[in-house]
């Protein structure tokens, strides 16, 4: 392998890791809700679309950036509490499959509502972040991706601190460990779930802005859930650390596979390679690399 080839491998690897961070951003939203309520929220992608579309539509109507951000966050909070009140609360104690199907339906409702309210046009989203690459030792690195990684890291740190050092975070963990025990000690589940959905809404907003700046704000934004699912399977559905590590592994491996294995099988393999990798992990560790093993008394 020549020095140039070696540099190219590193470049693909770094690009893949940075892409993986973007996948993690979406996956974290799933984890938050799954961790505390056991619901695989398929509507997370639609929430990303809804947040980004709301934000960009407000900005395009002349509302200042910061105020638009604030209003969008308020909208996501309202959305989170509405979902908890109208969808989840009536379905308490239903099977996980019922809840999953409910979020699947919710996904279509949010997508439809987003288009009904804000229209179907494609929007550009300029966050003011320069996306020209810079070179480090012969390797091109995207400044946008680097900043996105920093934002993701800050968000993970913030969420971790929130989970470990606040009363509500403690309550989250208690609910995640055992809902009935949490109820028994007087924790108010609906309020906690409402707050969790709000947190997921915040994650959707951050992911929506970063992915929106990358892809443009358009309907396809909701399809990014397809990138998050293998990350969740690999990392574990209830682990924020798993979402990060899973994202990095999926991002790096799918890029390396596309570049080095793709040419032998006609290319275009990264779409399914991530799922193949996740499937292998699923066979070996059904709860993912960092997921909590479920032990049930039978």
């Amino acid at each position: 392998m020549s020095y140039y080839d070696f540099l190219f491998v590193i470049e693909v690897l770094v690009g893949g890791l940075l892409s993986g961070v973007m996948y993690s951003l979406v996956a974290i939203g799933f984890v938050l809700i799954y961790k505390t309520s056991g619901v695989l929220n398929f509507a997370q992608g639609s929430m990303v679309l809804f947040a980004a579309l709301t934000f960009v539509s407000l900005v395009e109507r002349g509302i200042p950036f910061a105020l638009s951000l604030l209003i969008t966050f308020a909208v996501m909070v309202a959305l989170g509490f509405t979902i908890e009140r109208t969808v989840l609360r009536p379905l308490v104690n239903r099977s996980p499959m019922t809840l999953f199907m409910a979020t699947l339906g919710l996904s279509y409702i949010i997508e439809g509502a987003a288009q009904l309210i804000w229209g179907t046009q494609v929007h550009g989203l300029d966050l003011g972040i320069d996306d020209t690459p810079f070179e480090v030792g012969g390797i091109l690195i995207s400044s946008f991706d680097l900043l996105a990684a920093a934002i993701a890291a800050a968000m993970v740190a913030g969420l971790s601190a929130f989970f470990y050092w606040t009363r509500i975070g403690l309550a989250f963990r208690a609910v995640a460990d055992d809902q009935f025990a949490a109820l028994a000690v007087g924790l108010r589940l609906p309020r906690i779930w409402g707050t969790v959905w709000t947190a997921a809404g915040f994650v959707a907003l951050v992911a929506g802005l970063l992915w929106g700046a990358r892809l443009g704000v358009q309907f396809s934004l909701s399809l990014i859930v397809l990138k998050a699912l293998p990350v969740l399977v690999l990392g574990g559905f209830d682990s924020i650390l798993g979402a990060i590590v899973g994202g990095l592994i999926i991002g790096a491996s799918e890029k390396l596979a596309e570049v080095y294995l793709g040419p032998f099988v006609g290319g275009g393999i990264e779409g399914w390679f991530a799922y193949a990798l996740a499937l292998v992990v699923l066979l070996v560790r059904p709860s993912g690399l960092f997921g909590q093993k479920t032990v049930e008394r039978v």
Partner: protein
Amino acid sequence: MTFFSHLRKAAIATAFVLGATAVHAEEQYFPLQSYRVGPYAAGGTGFFGGFIDYLNLINIRDGGVNGVKLAWSEGETQYEVEKGVEVYERLKSNPGIAAWNPLSVGIAYAMIDRITDDKVPLITINHGRTDTTDGRVFPYVFPLLLNPYSETSGIVNYIASKEGGLDKLKGKNIVVLYHGSPYGKETIPIYELLSQKYGFELSQIEVPHPGNEQQAQWLTIRREHPDYVVLRGWGVMNPVALKTAQKTGFPADHIIGNVWSNSEEDVIPAGDAAKGYTAITTQASGERYPVVQEIVKTVYGDGKGNLEDKSRIGSVYHNLGIVNGILNVEAVRIAQAKFGNRTLTGDEVRWGFEHLKLNPARVEALGAKDLFHSINVSWDNHEGDGYVTFQQWDGKKWNVVSDWIAPDWKLLRPIIEKSSEAYAKEKGIKIRTAEDADAVVSN
């Protein structure tokens, strides 16, 4: 478009469906399998908006085509094949159907057998399966102006013109970045053929659907140092390609987009990364063409414009819809000249399409000079030798940067015939003759 404008539009559409779709005598009806919501709504609203705007212009300005009013109604498909077929089944019983115009490869494929049985034309302007160009085998399908093979040839000819001639292509390196779908893969053999003919190096790289992640592909492109990248994309794949090209240091002005990578919706999300990007088109964008100005004055002035956002008038999809409207209306007009100024059968309109010859003088008379070049459809050539031009995005609008360019039709025709004849053999279809084409069902 706001919530309330949606409501208003829905109310108008409902009233229209209830009141206007019952086609009366001397009305020619266009069933529209439109998509105004869903992932491709931006293209759908533009195209069907332009088409309806032109039909409205003919009704308001001319009182219809020789006194025959044009009518239409819409069924929402969301660009989904099963919904497209469902809309087809729902609308096909309306009398006086002139032609179907789904603007969807998938829906068009699903309709070929059905419309052939019904004897009604299926228009797939700028898209559809290439071998439907051969009217000997596909009597009712019309990939007007441009089929995928002609598009490929047009792009290579444009690159040649930039390099100083076809002979200068030898030794050049061209990468084709294509959407991982039957649509994206359709031109693979033609690029290979042209590569062998002109001696350029060729790599074809697939982007898996939907194309929202292309880091690996563009790093591979960067390693190959190509002279040009041809972008054969669709939807979100296009802005992501432009953004990732910027991220990997590939210049936008060496990326040439195909006909489904050429709209405002493809470049606006990419922001500055799209500046300098060039794409093929069969119809120029902008409002300066007399027919577009007439639509603004007459249709929008009358409050009947179809686009909610008037800033989209003259956009790529809107102008494509207008050109599609011109071609449909002129086919009806030509058929009327033979069969009489009345509501025509689908087969009579098919005959009209098979005699759709609009030379540049006629195009100018229609107010479309420089909007599109010309068309010359015949019973066995359903594409009609459309010319292409190239537009470059300056960050705000498209600017035409080439003359009208002719694809290499002679080179492509034998390949098309080979494919269509294989289809005919497989399906047991009798190859039509000119006499067959002149036999028309009039009731």
